[in-house]
């Protein structure tokens, strides 16, 4: 019952606070690609992998009072920050299972900025392609972000590190 809601909340509880809807989307997508059991459906959108289902779920959790959403005006755009409320923590007590390694993974990703996570999630989206093809793809579909060769290499290294640490039950 509401297990998928609880999983998203576990991820948020582990991260502490997530600043930005884009960042939240990319963190869950990356966790899903690392084989954590998230089942929200993601499509490729203008800003990379995006899940309408996840957006809806977050709205529901806010409406239930389990997540606290703060809207902040930044220069030229609006950003949302998310934290678990006390009621949310209480709700999570109904779910005594754990996702080993998730907490470390979410904390590690939360230390990165949204631009980098957008790149990491895009690399993962195209991971069925060769590295050269992925670079070509990023140059085309993410032309406005102007990712450098070094950043792409860094994203690959980051994914590898995340994977090996997560497999051992603790993330970078």
């Amino acid at each position, binding site marked *: *019952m*509401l297990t*998928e*809601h609880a999983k998203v909340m576990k991820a948020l509880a582990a991260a502490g606070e997530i600043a*930005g*809807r*884009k*960042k939240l*989307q990319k963190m869950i997508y990356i966790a899903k690609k690392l084989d954590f059991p998230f*089942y929200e*459906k993601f*499509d*490729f*959108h*203008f*800003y990379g992998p*995006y899940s*309408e*289902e996840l*957006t*809806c*779920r977050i*709205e*529901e959790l*806010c*409406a*239930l*009072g389990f997540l606290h959403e703060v809207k902040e005006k930044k220069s030229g*755009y*609006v*950003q*949302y920050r998310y934290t678990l409320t006390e*009621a949310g923590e*209480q*709700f999570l007590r*109904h779910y005594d299972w754990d996702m080993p390694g998730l907490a470390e993974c979410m904390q590690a990703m939360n230390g990165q900025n*949204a631009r980098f996570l*957008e790149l990491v999630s895009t690399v993962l989206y*195209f991971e069925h392609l060769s590295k050269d093809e992925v670079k070509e*793809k990023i140059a*085309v*579909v993410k032309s406005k972000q102007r990712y450098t060769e070094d950043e792409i290499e860094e994203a690959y290294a980051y994914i590898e590190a995340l994977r090996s640490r997560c497999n051992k039950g603790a993330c970078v």
Partner: protein
Amino acid sequence: MYSGGQLDEEKVFKDPVHRYIHVRDKVIWDLIGTKEFQRLRRIKQLGTTYLTFHGAEHSRFNHSLGVYEIIRRIIDDVFVGRDHWDHNERLLCLCAALLHDLGHGPFSHSFEKVFRLDHEDFTQAIILGDTEVNAALREVGDDFPQKVAEVIAKTYPNKLVVSLISSQIDADRMDYLLRDAYYTGVSYGYFDMERILRVMRPREDQVVIKRSGMHAVEDYIMSRYQMYWQVYFHPVTRSAEVILTKILHRAKKLYEDGYTFATKPTHFLSFFAGHVTLGDYLALDEAIILFYFQQWQYERDPVLSDLCRRFVHRRLFKYTEFHPTNEQMAKLIELRELFKKAGIDPDYYLVVDSSSDLPYDFYRPGEEGERLPIYLLMPNGELRELSRESVLVDAISGKRRTDHKLYFPADFLEDLSTKRTVKKKIMEILKG
């Protein structure tokens, strides 16, 4: 090679929504005739909605032709000769429009949830695999199937082309709103599509709407909003969907437990085992699923047979509003225990269904990394996001739109011949 190859004479399909669907390009005609595209005739556009709105028997085939026709009108009547529009992309757009739903399976929403599948993966596999669709597309060019697949996957470099098929005001949504309104018989899905098409303008990354067409777009957004609450989120349809999902879960569980089916689930075996081939996937349609449901009414397993009977004879679960606060969650846990005491398995007969479980989306004004919003092209050439100009759209796009329901078999609980006390207690809690 017949890039741009035309039929000797235009073919038309009669269509209740667009009146006529016009086909001049040979590749479109060939694609419609493929067995993979014809399969869409056997998959209903609205899944279980026909159990609520009896007219909703239309198929993915109708809808796919409709999306193609809308794109054809946009390209041939509105975009041709305009800046930002590359007419060499015409055939690519038409093919992508026609094939965008090709990978949908029977009752695909429930199916995908239970078997952890994604119809979009199958769309890609059909277009790129050893299929009649692939052969027809390759007649245009060796790389043409790949391009069509990329447009549908939204990874094609030309974002304008992608946005025609998939954006917040795309041909897909315009067709399904009008078509679903027509077939369900409701009066709130209508909007002036002709007007919207006339005010669409191509830009580098997406289609925008001339400011003078804002009221037509408002109407489209309102129609969408009303269709969600009145048709797509209808609690009775969701009840049927809940039962369908539980049938699939039960059949899978029985298979895993080594149960011997009276009617062996041959068509489901690879789904249960988690290694579905494209051939297995294409072999399934709704007629086959309903055949199994008919047969499984007579299985020894009481849960499977009961759920199938409910689906086939429309004996659906009743529902109550459920706001899963901590207090309600405690009640839910209590209810699960009481269900067990009453001899009713809560895993199959007590189900929370949330709006986020439904495959539909409201208009989003595109804040911070979400989907691109609808932009209005102002008379001075500036672009403005729709909800900043429209009070009406602003009013509905800022609202919380969440809904949770709790489904249960009222008929079991009202039968007081057994477990009378516990059932009465359950009904008291459910009635609040």
